C-alpha cells in the first residue's frame, strides 16, 4: 500500500507536483499516467526518498520509505533513467545492491535468470542495449522479492516480446497480492496492463479511477443506427436526455438510449433497421476527455502534441 498525502514539489517558481493525494492498493496493477513533464518521475522519486517533498508526505506500508530497515525487501524500484554504473558487470551491480541488505548471491543469480540476462551477466553494462538495461533495472527491483514495486516507464526501449513479458510479469506479481505502481505516458500501454489509473497533468491529480470508470466518465456511448426512414425514427426516439445527430440522410447517431430500446421502438413502428451498432468511447478518447481541462490553457499545437503523446498515435 502506497499513500501520498498532499505531496508537493516545487522547483523555484515551478510546481512540479501539486498537492497529490492518492492511495495505491495491493493486488492490482495501478497505472500512473500523464504526459512527459506531468510530474510522474518526481512523484516516484519522492515515494522512495530520493527527492524530499516541499510539502506533504509519502508512506509505503504505513511508514516513509527511509524508515524501512530493509528497503529493498519492502519496495523494488525501477527509475526512469538507467540507474546503473556502465563500467560494472550486470552481476556485480546486483551483488553490490544485494550486499546492502544481506541478500544472498543465490538470489542474484535467480533474478538474472528471471529477466533472461544469464548470457550477459558477466559483461559490462556499458555495452547493453536499452532493453537489456531495462531488464537489469527490473532484476534490481525484484532482488529483495518486495511486496511493492514502483516502476517508472518500464516498457521504454523494450521490443514487443519484452513488452509482453513485462505486462505478464506485472499482472502475475499483482495477482500474488503485491502493490504495483507503474508509470507510462502511453494510454494504450496502460489500457493493457493496469486496472486502476492515477492520471496527472501538470503536477495535479486529474483522475483516480478504474479503467472501466474512466471509459464511463467519457459519457460518449453512442449507438449508430442506419435506416431508410431516418426522419420518422428520429421523431419517435426524441425524448428527454436523448441526443440525436445525423450525418447522412439514412444515418443517426443516438446517445442517451441504448441499442435494445432503439431496436424495440423501431420494430414497434415497423421501421426496418439496416444497422444498429453500439459504440463505446475508446480509452484514448476517454482519456482525452478527462485531461482536456488540464491542457486547455496551452497552445493548440501543444494540445495536438499532447494528444499524440497520450494516445501514442500520430494522425497528423
Amino acid at each position, binding site marked *: 500500500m502506497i499513500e501520498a498525502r498532499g505531496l508537493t514539489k516545487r522547483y523555484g517558481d515551478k510546481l512540479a507536483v501539486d498537492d497529490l493525494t492518492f492511495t495505491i492498493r495491493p493486488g492490482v496493477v495501478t497505472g500512473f499516467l500523464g504526459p512527459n513533464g506531468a510530474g510522474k518521475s518526481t512523484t516516484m*522519486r519522492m515515494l522512495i526518498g*530520493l527527492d524530499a517533498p516541499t510539502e506533504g508526505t509519502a508512506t509505503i506500508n504505513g511508514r516513509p520509505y527511509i524508515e524501512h530497515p*530493509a*528497503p529493498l525487501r519492502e519496495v523494488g*524500484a525501477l527509475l526512469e533513467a538507467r*540507474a546503473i554504473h556502465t563500467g560494472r558487470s550486470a552481476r556485480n551491480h546486483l551483488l553490490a545492491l544485494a550486499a*546492502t541488505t*544481506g541478500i544472498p548471491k543465490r538470489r542474484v543469480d535467480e533474478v538474472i535468470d528471471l529477466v533472461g540476462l544469464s548470457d550477459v551477466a558477466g559483461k559490462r553494462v556499458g555495452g547493453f542495449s536499452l532493453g537489456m538495461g531495462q531488464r537489469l533495472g527490473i532484476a534490481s527491483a525484484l532482488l529483495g522479492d518486495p511486496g511493492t514495486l514502483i516502476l517508472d516507464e518500464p516498457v521504454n526501449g523494450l521490443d514487443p516480446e519484452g513488452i509482453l513479458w513485462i505486462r505478464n510479469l506485472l499482472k502475475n506479481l499483482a495477482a500474488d497480492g503485491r502493490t504495483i505502481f507503474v508509470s507510462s505516458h502511453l494510454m494504450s500501454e496502460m489500457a493493457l496492463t493496469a486496472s486502476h489509473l492515477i492520471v496527472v497533468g501538470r503536477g495535479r491529480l486529474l483522475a483516480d479511477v478504474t479503467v472501466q470508470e474512466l471509459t464511463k466518465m467519457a459519457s460518449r456511448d453512442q449507438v449508430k443506427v442506419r435506416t431508410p426512414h431516418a426522419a420518422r425514427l428520429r421523431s419517435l426516439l426524441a425524448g428527454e436526455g436523448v441526443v440525436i445527430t445525423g450525418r447522412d440522410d439514412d444515418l443517426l447517431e443516438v446517445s442517451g438510449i441504448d441499442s435494445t430500446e432503439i431496436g424495440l421502438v423501431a420494430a414497434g413502428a415497423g421501421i426496418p433497421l439496416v444497422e444498429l451498432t453500439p459504440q463505446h468511447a475508446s480509452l484514448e478518447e476517454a482519456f482525452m476527455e478527462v485531461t482536456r481541462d488540464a491542457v486547455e490553457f496551452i497552445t493548440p499545437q501543444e494540445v495536438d502534441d499532447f494528444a499524440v503523446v497520450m494516445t501514442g498515435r500520430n494522425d497528423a
Partner: protein
Amino acid sequence: MSATAIAQRVALGTGGVTQTRVIESEWVKFRSLRSTLFSLLAAVVCTVGLGILISALRANDFKQHGVLKGIGGFDPTAHSLRGLYLAQLAIGVLGVLVITGEYSTGMVRATFAAVPRRLPVLWAKIAVFSVVVFVVSFVASLVAFLAGQAFLGTAHVGVSLGSPGAARAVLGGALYLTITGLLAVGLGFVLRNTAGAIATLFGLLLVLPVIAQALPSSWYDDVYKYLPMPAGGQIMTTVTDRTLLSPWAGLGVFAVYAVVAVAAGAFVLKRRDA
C-alpha cells in the same frame, strides 16, 4: 509459516541495512571497476618508478661530480619518495571517480534507494577507499624508499629505515596519499561532477601554491606553509625547513582540509535531492 515460505525467507536473507553490509557493498563496487585497478597501478608505478629514476640519476650525479660539501640540505629520504607527488594525481582522480562516477551514470539513485539514509554510503566509501589506498601506497612508498636508497647507496649517500625520520617519512607518504584521496572523495560529494571536482582538487593542491607566490613576502611565509600540499608534504621529508610546518603539524593541517571537504560532502548529501 509453511515450509516454502520459510525457504523463501532463507533464500532472501534476513535483517536490514547495516554499516557492515554497506561496506561490503561498497567493496564489491570498488573492486568491480577497471578504473580502480588502473588508478592504483598508475599510483604504484609513479611512486616506485619515479623514486628509482630520480634516485639513480642523483646517485650518478654524485658519483661523477662528487658530493659537494655544504649540501647539508640534501634529503635522501625525500628524494626517493618524490614519486608520491605524481602518484597523488592518480589517487586524487580515483577518489573523485568513486563518487562522481555514480552521479554521472545515475547509479547513485540505485545506491540511495538501497540505503536511503545515505550517510552509511559515505562512511563505507571512505572506509573501503582509505584502507585500500593506504595499504597500496604504503607498499609503494616502502619499495620506492628501499630501491631509491639502494641506488643512492652506490654514491654513499643512502640511508636506512632506521635513520632519523626515515620510517616516519615512508609511513607519512602513504598517509599523504590517503588524505589526498579523502579530500578528493569529499569534493566529489560536494560537487557531484567529475571535471569540477578534479579541477578543484588540483587547483587546491597544485595551483594555490603558485598563486601564493604573488603575495607580498611578509604574507607569503605565513600563508604558504598552511596550503594543503606544502603542509602535507613535510611528512615525507627528514630535513627541517624552518619556513614550513613540522611534519606531523603539517600533516594535521592537510588532514583538516580533507575533514572539512568530507564534512561538507556529508552535510549536502543529507539535504540535497539525489
